[in-house]
């Protein structure tokens, strides 16, 4: 195995297998992945900060076996920030917090192409700072159907004084986030609220939307997965790469942009590649910033 020791911000980091092609049908090596995360670091780090990272590692690339790793790998450099979180059985588990560039580089070097984080910060694991609608197209539905649902959601929530923000999942779906950023919010509330919204959507658009998990209900429809609003669940972090044939990214889209793209009926335009993600973020700034700071209240609970 080839190794190279580098120094990021004065901290030593050993990088391995830089030439290994982890997206073989596209041609994207470990070095490319590190370069992408370095370039996007300014944008992604605030969204990873203080959240218990779940690594999704593809040591042999996107076409081979992967594994999730919630526990922070024990063979880690001493400068990696960690914290302890309680598991379901009450035992503590050490998890990584990606709070700086070094840690992001180290995590990327572990071939953790995808970075998944909970909706709550590690020191307040029961307090979601946003509510999410995970729009997942069933068989014979696509990302354009998701875009339609996302736009209806935006319009449905806006009279309730709830601004929302959309990003691509980097796979087939879209994610709509409603920032809350209030310390009294609980997952029980976000779950109750999002479930009510999903069911109202299903009642009013029965041919387009389902609020039910079971696969047989999802055909030709968009599943609004409200159950992601749970302390035990994680979401793909905005700006994270996805493990697909090409290095697509979970990327934020302005509503006007989404409206345009939905009108053009070209699903390909809703897939943002690594290069486009980096240059668009640099040009437009972080379109997901409000998700971290905007304070909103869920009414009528």
């Amino acid at each position, binding site marked *: 195995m080839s190794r190279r020791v580098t120094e990021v911000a004065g901290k030593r980091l050993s990088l391995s297998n830089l030439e290994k092609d982890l997206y073989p049908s596209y041609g994207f090596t470990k070095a490319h992945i590190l370069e992408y995360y370095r370039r996007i670091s300014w944008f992604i780090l605030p969204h990873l900060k203080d959240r218990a990272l779940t690594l999704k590692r593809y040591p042999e690339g996107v076409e081979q*076996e992967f594994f999730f*790793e919630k526990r922070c790998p024990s063979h880690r450099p*001493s400068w990696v920030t960690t914290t302890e979180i309680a598991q379901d059985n009450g035992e503590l588990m050490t998890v990584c917090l990606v709070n700086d560039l070094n840690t992001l580089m180290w995590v990327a070097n572990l071939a953790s192409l995808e970075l998944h984080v909970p909706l709550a910060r590690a020191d307040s694991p029961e307090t979601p700072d946003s509510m999410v609608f995970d729009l997942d197209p069933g068989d014979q539905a696509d990302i354009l159907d998701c875009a339609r649902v996302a736009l209806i959601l935006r*319009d449905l929530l806006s*009279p*309730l004084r709830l601004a929302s923000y959309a990003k691509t999942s980097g796979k087939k779906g879209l994610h709509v986030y409603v920032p809350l950023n209030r310390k009294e919010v609980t997952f029980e509330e976000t779950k109750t609220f999002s*479930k*009510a919204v999903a069911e109202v959507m299903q009642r009013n658009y029965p041919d387009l939307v389902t609020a039910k*998990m079971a696969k047989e209900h999802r055909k030709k429809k968009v599943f609004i997965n409200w159950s992601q609003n749970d302390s035990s669940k994680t979401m793909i972090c905005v700006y994270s790469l996805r493990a697909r044939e090409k290095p697509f990214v979970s990327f934020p889209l302005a509503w006007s942009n989404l409206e345009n793209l939905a009108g053009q009926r070209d699903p390909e335009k809703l897939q943002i590649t690594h290069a486009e993600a980096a240059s668009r973020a640099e040009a437009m700034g972080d379109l997901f910033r409000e998700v971290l700071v905007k304070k909103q209240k869920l009414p*009528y609970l």
Partner: protein
Amino acid sequence: MKLSSGGGNETAAQGIWSGTISFSLVAIPVQLVKAVEPGRVSFRMLHGKDYSPLLRRMFCPREEKMVPPDEIIRGYEIGPDKYIVLTDEELESVSPERSRTIEIIEFIDMKDVDSIYYDHPYYLVPSKGGEKAYSLLAEVMRRANKAGLAKFVLGEREYLVAVKSMEGALSLITLHYSEEILPDEEIAPQDGKIESEEKSRMKKIIKEMTGDFTPEKYADERRKKIVKLLRKKLKEKATVEAPAVEEEEGGGPVDLIAVLEESMRKVKKSR
């Protein structure tokens, strides 16, 4: 899917605790890290009929129902159906104060400590600025064949520990308290008449079987076989999937539903 085949050989830098080793006027900043990772293969318990993962819950046999965590307290059993109840506060009041030092009380000969006292091993890693003092202590203890006997608080307990030198590094091993060691007086047989002929024969056998300690020669065979079996089943795609948890429909706060329906009417009108 994760299937690692064994503990790695790299030094685990998993800090469990950080503080200082101190004695006399010396203070060495260190981190305590794990030295062993038991290679046990652990399994999740599943419901056989649909592979749902199962949870452990506390069950009250009298009421025949599950007991929520806020109704659970601790009792020390003193006889059939008789307990002394201790509250969390009472337990906390007797816990040692958290401390940031491994206070060496005396230096001892490690030979004098029977291995029966050994409990759990850790490595000590020097923290920034402590490297020099760390190496000095490790080197001097190695030459003098001494280990530091220390008291040390980790979590809720105070431990008796030995700080040892180990090839230029320091290790820490927690020791059992003497009251934890079970008596051994009756283990050695009383009438120990030994014929010198038998003795020399035994000596000879041992000599013939003498080897250097090479732990790499041995491995947990059952673990190896389980991992091999798991790999094979993974390759054969002999995996099962738990069903998604289906939640019932309906409900939700009445006012919220009404407001959402009202908002929805407007959305539909404007489209």
